[in-house]
């Protein structure tokens, strides 16, 4: 039976077991949306294409399954770019379908034409412009395969209007043929043995775990390795859910706003086991001083990450989960008790701290700590980008896999709120909190309509300091308090915004109102926005000034 290209997309999505698509219609995807009209696939319509792609990203981070996006040609497609780049930096599996003008019009500057494959070339794992209907099923098959194997990432398929309308036979290939793409999953046994030996010989080992642990689903293996060997674990922002934050061996996050003890441990370590991490500048600070005394073992599925920034003694290319499983077999308990004592001294020396006065202004950290307590650490959390994001990393102790969606690599303001929508869609029974800043929430605030329309019970906690807080902090610390364009002037009234969208809006202005507001929000069956009016000029500490060694932390607050 012959079907048209748009139907082929729907059929292919079914074969890929996709039940949810995030998108926004338009002229060049009319055929696609016509097929969606009676397809057994749920479409979550955003209010801006950027909202759709971030939601698909949040869905993917919360479920581990690829997020699927539809958008039209031209502006629809270009509106996706920030979201695609966000996903690319954090290795998030997405399959994105964009409409394109009909093939005869490509290259003529047609109405709503944009060269989206050209534009997204640097921010996709791979992309396609389909110019022959016969290629369509195989292309979709490849796109899903590429997005969800090796190092995950976004893959875009550009579909000209006439391809969507043309009819042909649909045969969905069972296999793909990609001769230039051969990810290595099994770690080299000799290298794993060398790693085990290095671990046995080390006296001050630290595991440095990143997002690769999460994407590979290696949370259990990492826990087993840490517990068997007694090696403490510091994680990146992306790796926070990879290891329980409440575990005695957890050092919390390392890097620019990491814990003092995690950073000091890295500085004194004689062995670093980097697991699915990529030595980002927010983690390493001044690179030449990072783990300067340590031998480095680096496990990563992407060979290009190994040796990119630091010289590695023992590189292991492979899937983190499989490599750790092999490594566990070869390791013995290490004598780390003396080392852990040393780390605990640092922990006692400079704990995370803030001073919440009973009658004073609300401390932002206090709000996040109370959200952590009231949810028992079991909520799914998305964050925007900025101070509140770092406080979340410091004060919310993640214990459940895939319970955090945060833009790490690209640092995209406007990511967190739509991402929370995707998390809630992907895991409907769960409690989802979006921890936002008053600046970043406004970057995709139109998605309030999506939240309201689908009645998704996300709780948006706006940490409202009426500033672009992180920029203000840098201006305070490095630009002599010359506050340039960071004042957000108490506009808008977030409670009224919530109400305008038919969503419950709450406000907390005093410390005593924080817990009742959180409880009220959790008890409410639908979506809630809570406007937490917090101290305006609170800073995130500790902090490693840019390009400084991570041992040189500004501790502040204490």
């Amino acid at each position: 039976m012959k079907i048209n290209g748009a139907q082929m997309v729907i059929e292919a999505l079914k074969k890929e077991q996709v039940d949810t698509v995030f998108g926004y219609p338009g002229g060049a995807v009319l055929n696609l949306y016509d097929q969606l009209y009676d397809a057994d696939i749920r479409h979550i319509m955003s209010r801006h294409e950027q909202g759709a792609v971030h939601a698909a990203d949040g869905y993917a981070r919360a479920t581990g399954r690829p997020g699927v996006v539809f958008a039209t040609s031209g502006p629809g497609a270009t509106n996706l770019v920030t979201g695609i780049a966000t996903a690319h930096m954090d290795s998030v599996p997405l399959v994105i379908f964009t409409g394109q003008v009909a093939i005869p019009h490509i290259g003529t500057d047609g109405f709503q034409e944009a060269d989206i494959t050209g534009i997204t070339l640097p921010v996709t794992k791979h992309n396609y412009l389909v110019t022959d209907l016969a290629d369509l099923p195989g292309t979709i098959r490849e796109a899903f395969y590429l997005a969800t194997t090796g190092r995950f990432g976004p893959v875009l398929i550009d579909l000209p209007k006439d391809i969507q309308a043309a009819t042909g036979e649909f045969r969905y290939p069972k296999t793909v043929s990609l001769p230039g793409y051969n990810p290595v999953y099994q770690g080299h046994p000799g290298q794993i043995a060398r790693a085990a030996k290095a671990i046995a010989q080390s006296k001050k080992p630290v595991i440095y775990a990143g997002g690769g642990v999460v994407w590979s689903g290696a949370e259990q293996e990492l826990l087993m390795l840490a517990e068997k060997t007694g090696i403490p674990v510091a994680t990146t922002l992306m790796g926070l859910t990879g290891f329980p934050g409440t575990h005695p061996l957890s050092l919390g996050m390392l890097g620019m706003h990491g814990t003092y003890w995690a950073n000091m441990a890295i500085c004194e370590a004689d062995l670093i086991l980097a697991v699915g991490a990529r030595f980002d500048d927010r983690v390493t600070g001044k690179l030449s001083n990072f783990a300067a005394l340590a031998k480095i073992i680096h496990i990563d599925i992407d060979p290009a990450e190994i040796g990119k920034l630091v010289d590695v003694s023992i590189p292991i290319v492979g899937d983190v989960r499989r490599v750790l499983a092999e490594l566990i077999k070869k390791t013995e308990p290490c004598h780390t008790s003396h080392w852990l004592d040393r780390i605990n001294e640092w922990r006692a020396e400079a704990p995370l701290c803030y001073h919440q006065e009973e009658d004073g202004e609300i401390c932002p950290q206090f709000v996040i700590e109370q959200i952590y307590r009231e949810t028992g650490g079991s909520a799914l959390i998305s964050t925007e980008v900025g101070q509140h994001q770092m406080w979340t990393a410091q004060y919310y102790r993640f214990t459940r896999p895939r319970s955090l969606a945060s833009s790490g690599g690209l640092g995209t303001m406007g990511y967190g709120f739509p991402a929370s929508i995707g998390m809630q869609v992907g895991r409907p029974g769960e409690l989802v909190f979006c921890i936002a800043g008053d600046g970043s929430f406004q970057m995709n605030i139109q998605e309030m309509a999506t939240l309201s329309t689908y009645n998704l019970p996300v709780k948006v906690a706006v940490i409202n300091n009426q500033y672009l807080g992180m920029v203000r902090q840098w201006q305070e610390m490095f630009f002599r308090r010359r506050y340039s364009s960071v004042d957000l002037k108490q506009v808008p009234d977030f409670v009224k915004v919530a109400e305008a969208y038919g969503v419950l809006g709450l406000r907390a202005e005093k410390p005593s109102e924080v817990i009742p507001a959180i409880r009220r929000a959790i008890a409410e069956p639908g979506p809630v926005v809570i406007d937490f009016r917090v101290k305006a000029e609170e800073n995130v500490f500790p902090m490693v000034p840019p390009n400084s060694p991570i041992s040189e932390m500004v501790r502040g607050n204490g």
Partner: protein
Amino acid sequence: MKMRYVLAVLVENKPGVLVRVAGLLSRRKFNIESVAAGKTGDPGITRITIEVEADEKTLEQVIKQLNKLVNVLKISNLTSEPAVIRDLLLIKVRADASNRNEISQIVETFRAKTIDFSPQSMIIEVTGNEEKMEALMLLLSGYGILEIARTGKVALLRGSKTLINNGEARENGKNVL
């Protein structure tokens, strides 16, 4: 220490593949001296020869990053192996009846070819290695070089060894699932 390397890159002959390769090299700030691309005996495969100036660590990154491109089948560093490396150069030089013979002697000495004459100019074609090209250009500059066009380097391994037979590209081509 920085030096020049010649890489032979076999890629799938798909639309935009040269842009993917060139775009990657440029956005990662790799220093490219020349790029030459052309079809191979297999219509599905294009061979791109890239001359890159880099230290060893950067070279390793260039190769690893290129390998991440889905359409890239195989990369070989020909600098570390015995290889024939050639560049074709066309030089338009100012020449008239008074010095044409003199220039022709230079052309002969360099085993170059004169391929076009006009009353005021001639075009010379030469292939060879960098030193030969430089020496020829230096000599001809005395007469006035009007224009130069070069292909960029192309290269093959010496002996019967080839990129494809010795690589895994074809075997892997069947199926990766």
